[in-house]
């Protein structure tokens, strides 16, 4: 009925007709509708338009209303923008029946008696529709609209909307019909909104007051219209229900939508019932006038609400699909409500229409007027939008499986992009959503969680304002990520992770090897260690030099940048060629960096200061990253796989956006082990650097020594330092190789590495990072956190990304001298332990090792058993050959000759080359009393003749056993006798 009233509203003549003689016209119109589309049923549903009136009274009518509304909804969305405006204009002009539906109402009011006038003038189909609408025919178009927005639209549009139809048509593609349904849809949507508005109207304030005014007019008008329709509806109500049911049955295509609207209508009517009832009463013969007076204001709104409510149903579908759009516009709340009400089936049914509706909805929003009501609803929705965000959050949380995390690292863009794109608010939820993933990038942050955050935030802010937000987000996620990680640690998942990690990580060359993952890991660790040593050595040299240097922080920054830049810097070297001149004395180049390291170390000693340093480093890195990282990234990505990671790091430093985070995470992973290594050098560098400063060689030794204690001592700046150290190592290597000429260029590069750690900070997505960070944060507290570093190494191990670094390192190392890093292999165990970021993973690794070991042991045992068995068998055979075979031979030979040539004895068979059936011969031998003896106490079975058995030497209990076919087989083969098992019994 909604459709019908709306149609009427669009064309007052229709309304009048509906009031006048709904039943007569309906039959033809539905047929037409059916002919027009499969949605003829829908039209019948649109006939339900009268039903909605009933729906107010009864559920079935509500369903029909909904159908009509759905149909109208699509149209409304499309035409709503235009029509409502137009209607509103008209309404403004003619308040009572102003709106497009009002137009109809006006028309109806005016020409309620003289329907044909405007309607007929407009178009005959409208008349038909109107007639149909009044009776049952109107509902079918509405249904058709719901089922197929385009189809429904043309009918109504043709009549009412000469103006608006074009734009709505453009969306639905069906010009005229869609227009009418659009109007209807508008009215319906309004009705829905009206329903919503009842609750939401209060909240609806925010949006346009004009709309509210219009709304009131419309509501009034609608109420009038509804009143007009209501009588019809009342009259038709039971009929319509039946008809609707029948229609639904008839409506094959629209069957699904029909029931859903009914249900929706039922739901909606409850709210609108009062209005509906009023309308019904009004419509009811005598009451109409009285209520018409009142309802014009109140009832009309209610009626529209009812009408709107069914439209809401359609909208619901709309909402489902349109929710994104609605969320933008603010319609999301309706969608949510509708979603709650509507069943999944309903959503599916309307899906087709929803598309057109979605487009329409957008247009409406643009137009605004019709949207006003809608917008009001939307305002209500705005609070409801939270559920959307919640949903998204929940989804994100769901996504935080280990597999997702692992894979996510490789597919960083999705989550990271979202996080990056979102503002601080987004980050907040994101943090909750992506806590696990984010942590990794925050290694530095984790290490210095409290301090670094502060420092980092300001520093980072300086390079990029967005970064602090991301950082904040990352911080929150950190705590959560840990939890997630814990959850994730379930054995099965951990095992999977293990496998995946082993498979995924490692350089191509490493992977190419057939070596076990353990070996690869060890190798990687060794390489890392070696690299770290080299870096540490370089850092020490630098430190010694840098000690003299004035600005510690700047130096630190330079170091970090240098180190971080090393990744990208390698490429830079290629491009910029600053580093190209490989002066054998990296010291000169690095001293600045070294000095920074030394400073950092000193800060680390102070405790908090190192964190600051790390932060500052990160900032600097970010800054530098902006300057240099991008090129370096590009270069690095192009040149090496690790380069990609560097790029990612750099980008996150700058923007902390999506894809890069993953890379950062990887870096973090890499960094973590290295951090452990590098940290000690940093902390130790203060003391050691001075000692070792003069000699490079001594540096290596010292670095190793220092690193070990440092790991325990300074965990604060470990993350950042580690990253920086890694970079530094790389840089050092590069420097050694290239001996970068321009120290300033190095400094920015060093800053870039800093940028990487901030990226890691920003990157909340990776859970492993979070865990690392969490661990790292305790590290700041000091040695007590040593256990934590162990866990991060696990992560490192698990995350084979380090391998990539290793590859680069290995490459860099090759020119330098791999020997010194190898010296640190002794430290490898410690490094290895820290490399394992995930304790569970480490456990799994252990388990794997154990499994392998167990397998080996089991295999050995099996082999031993087999060997023992073989030996025993040999002994047994020897014994048999010695004892049993002669007995068998004598028994066979000694058997009496056959007296029947057809039944030769066994020996005669043998002489005649008959294949011997072992089972038979065995049975015969056993029957002849041939036995073999087993000494139970001995492992080896002593097989002796019965006579000899008595003389068992060792008091062995000799058991007499019957021969087995296998023994006889051996005897036969021993004597070149062709033997075979009975067919089918072969072993």
């Amino acid at each position: 009925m909604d459709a019908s009233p709306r149609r009427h509203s669009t064309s007052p003549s229709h309304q009048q007709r509906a009031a006048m003689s709904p039943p007569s016209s309906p039959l033809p119109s539905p047929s037409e509708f059916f002919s027009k589309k499969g949605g003829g049923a829908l039209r019948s549903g649109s006939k339900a338009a009268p039903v909605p009136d009933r729906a107010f009274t009864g559920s079935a009518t509500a369903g029909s209303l909904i159908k009509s509304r759905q149909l109208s909804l699509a149209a409304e969305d499309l035409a709503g923008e235009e029509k409502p405006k137009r209607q509103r204009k008209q309404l403004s002009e003619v308040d009572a029946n102003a709106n497009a539906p009002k137009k109809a109402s006006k028309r109806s009011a005016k020409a309620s008696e003289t329907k044909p006038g405007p309607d007929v003038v407009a178009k005959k189909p409208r008349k038909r529709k109107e007639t149909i609408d009044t009776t049952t025919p109107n509902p079918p178009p509405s249904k058709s609209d719901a089922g197929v927005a385009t189809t429904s639209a043309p009918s109504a549009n043709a009549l009412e909307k000469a103006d608006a139809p074009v734009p709505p048509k453009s969306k639905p593609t069906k010009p005229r019909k869609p227009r009418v349904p659009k109007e209807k849809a508008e009215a319906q949507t309004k009705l829905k909104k009206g329903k919503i508005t009842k609750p939401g109207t209060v909240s609806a304030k925010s949006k346009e007051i004009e709309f509210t005014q219009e709304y009131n007019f419309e509501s009034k008008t609608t109420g009038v219209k509804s009143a007009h329709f209501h009588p019809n509806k009342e009259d038709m109500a039971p009929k319509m229900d039946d008809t609707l049911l029948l229609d639904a049955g008839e409506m094959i295509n629209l069957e699904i939508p029909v029931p859903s609207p009914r249900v929706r209508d039922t739901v909606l009517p409850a709210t609108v019932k009062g209005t509906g009832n009023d309308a019904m009463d009004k419509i009811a013969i005598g009451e109409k006038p009285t209520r018409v007076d009142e309802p014009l204001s109140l009832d009309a709104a209610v009626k529209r609400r009812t009408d709107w409510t069914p439209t809401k149903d359609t909208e619901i579908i709309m909402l489902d699909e349109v929710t994104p759009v609605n969320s933008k516009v603010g319609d999301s709340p309706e969608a949510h409500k509708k979603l709650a009400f509507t069943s999944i089936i309903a959503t599916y049914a309307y899906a087709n229409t929803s598309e057109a509706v979605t487009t329409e909805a957008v247009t409406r929003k643009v137009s605004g007027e019709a949207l006003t009501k809608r917008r009001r609803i939307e305002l209500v929705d705005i609070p409801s939008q939270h559920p959307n965000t919640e949903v998204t959050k929940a989804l994100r949380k769901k996504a935080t499986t280990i597999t997702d995390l692992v894979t996510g690292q490789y597919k960083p863009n999705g989550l990271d992009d979202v996080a990056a794109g979102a503002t601080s608010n987004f980050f907040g939820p994101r943090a909750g959503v992506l806590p696990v993933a984010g942590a990794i990038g925050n290694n530095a942050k984790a290490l210095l969680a409290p301090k670094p955050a502060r420092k980092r935030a300001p520093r980072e802010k300086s390079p990029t304002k967005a970064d602090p937000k991301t950082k904040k987000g990352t911080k929150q996620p950190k705590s959560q990520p840990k939890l997630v990680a814990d959850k994730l640690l379930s054995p099965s998942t951990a095992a999977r992770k293990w496998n995946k990690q082993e498979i995924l990580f490692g350089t191509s060359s490493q992977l190419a090897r057939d070596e076990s993952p353990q070996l690869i890991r060890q190798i990687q660790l060794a390489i890392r260690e070696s690299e770290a040593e080299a870096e540490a050595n370089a850092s020490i040299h630098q430190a010694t030099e840098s000690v003299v240097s004035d600005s510690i922080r700047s130096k630190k920054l330079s170091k970090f940048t240098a180190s971080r830049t090393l990744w990208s810097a390698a490429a830079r070297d290629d491009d910029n060629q600053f580093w190209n001149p490989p002066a054998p004395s990296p010291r000169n180049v690095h001293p600045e960096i070294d000095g920074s390291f030394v400073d950092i170390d000193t800060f680390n000693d102070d405790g908090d200061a190192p964190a600051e340093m790390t932060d500052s480093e990160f900032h600097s890195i970010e800054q530098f990253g902006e300057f240099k990282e991008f090129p370096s990234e590009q270069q690095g990505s192009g040149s090496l796989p690790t380069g990609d990671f560097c790029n990612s790091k750099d980008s996150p430093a700058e923007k902390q956006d999506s894809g890069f985070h993953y890379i950062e995470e990887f870096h973090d992973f890499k960094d973590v082990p290295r951090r452990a290594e590098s940290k000690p050098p940093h902390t130790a560098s203060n003391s050691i650097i001075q000692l070792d400063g003069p000699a490079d060689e001594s540096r290596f030794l010292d670095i190793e020594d220092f690193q070990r204690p440092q790991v325990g001592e300074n965990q604060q700046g470990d993350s950042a330092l580690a990253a920086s150290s890694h970079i530094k190592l790389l840089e050092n290597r590069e420097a050694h190789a290239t001996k970068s000429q321009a120290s300033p260029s190095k400094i920015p590069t060093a800053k870039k590495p800093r940028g990487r750690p901030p990226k890691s900070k920003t990157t909340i997505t990776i859970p492993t990072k979070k865990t690392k960070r969490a661990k790292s944060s305790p590290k700041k507290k000091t040695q007590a956190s040593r256990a934590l570093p162990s866990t991060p190494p696990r992560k490192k191990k698990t995350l084979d990304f380090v391998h990539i670094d290793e590859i680069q390192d290995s490459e860099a190392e090759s020119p330098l001298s791999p020997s010194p890093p190898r010296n640190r292999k002794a430290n490898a165990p410690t490094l290895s332990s820290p490399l394992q970021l995930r304790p569970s993973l480490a456990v799994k690794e252990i388990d794997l090792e154990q499994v392998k070991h167990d397998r080996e042991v089991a295999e050995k045992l099996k082999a031993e058993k087999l060997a023992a068995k073989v030996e025993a068998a040999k002994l047994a055979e020897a014994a048999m050959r010695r004892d049993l075979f002669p007995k068998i031979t004598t028994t066979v030979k000694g058997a009496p000759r056959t007296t029947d040539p057809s039944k030769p004895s066994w020996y005669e068979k043998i002489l005649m080359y008959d294949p011997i059936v072992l089972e038979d011969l065995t049975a015969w031998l056993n029957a002849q009393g041939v036995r073999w003896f087993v000494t139970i106490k001995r492992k080896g079975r002593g097989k002796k003749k019965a006579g000899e058995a008595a003389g068992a030497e060792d008091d062995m209990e000799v058991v007499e056993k019957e021969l087995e076919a296998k023994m006889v087989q051996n005897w036969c083969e021993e004597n070149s006798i062709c033997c075979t098992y009975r067919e089918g019994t072969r072993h």
Partner: protein
Amino acid sequence: MDKPIPAFYCCYLLRSTKMPASLYIGSTPNPVRRLKQHNGKTQGGAFRTHKDTHRPWEMICMVYGFPSNIAALQFEWAWQNSCFTHHIPDEERITKPTRRKLRPKLDPKGIEPPVERWKLVRPRYTIVQVLQNIHLLLRVKSFQQWPLHVKFFASDVFKKWEKAKPKKISLRDGIRVELDESKPPTDEVTTDETCPPPATGIHALDVEYTALKSHLQKSRFILENGTMVACGVCERSLRPSKALVLVCPLEGCRSASHMACLSTKFLAGGNGNALVPTNGKCPECKATLEWTSLVKELSLRTRAIEEVEAIITGKRSKTNLSEAEEDFAELVPMAIHGDKDSGSDDDVSDDGWILQEVGGIAEEFELGFPAEDDAVLTTRPG
């Protein structure tokens, strides 16, 4: 069990004339017919030999004299799978199986690393290895006492055999290794229908019991004469109905003896601890007799009475001459045995090389004597 010893059964080695590296090991009681099958001239060839790129195949070597189809099949399998057969001690094994990597077994739970799996597969043998395996199999305990002989039909292969066989280890004395030097018939040979060219190579093999005709006739004459015949060994009276009696095949020698007695005598003659003698001297004529020939006649006489009658009377049994055999009538009119090989050629072996031809173990030897045998026999050499 009640089948007579087949007139002929061999394990043969085929070599592709187009791809000499391709070899095939099979067994058959009728090499000529089987070779035609392999070459696609008749139905029933082996799958492994069906490729036209390898045809025609030539039979370059055979081990014959198997006392039963089961024995032949066992030897064939051992020959084909010399890397697996238990008849060859591991310490003497020449060929080792190769590992074929299979898909690793994955832990369904994903916890344990995948388990590597291998499948042991017999390698691709070379001609030399095959020949060496012949030598080895003839020396292993399982087969060394079998009345087997080796015949080569290609001189180059025989040279390889001579070169490949171990120098210090010799085969049992009773095993004959010989090269068939008869020249294969050439296409140019005048095809005189009345006087077909002499059979050569495998075509010259006697795969029928015809050689036993005289022996059968003699034994019947001696044993069914109604006169008392004393065992040549124990000198007790022989009652063919009560005991298994062996008759000296040599013409002019009327010696007959209990099988047990003669076996004992032969074994005492120097066959060591063997249960079955290989040969010995006739107690009367002192001629060296092969145990196989004695037993073959005995088995045929005692187990295939109808066939013996057919052989002696020269009448072909109604059932025993298959159509396929008739096809061979030109060259091998005596083909009597139903070829178990036919139709059982699907090679299960994974290796393309040596293909095993598995015949039904329960093959029944249908003995028959072609009615035209006489005429055919006249055409046959010797």
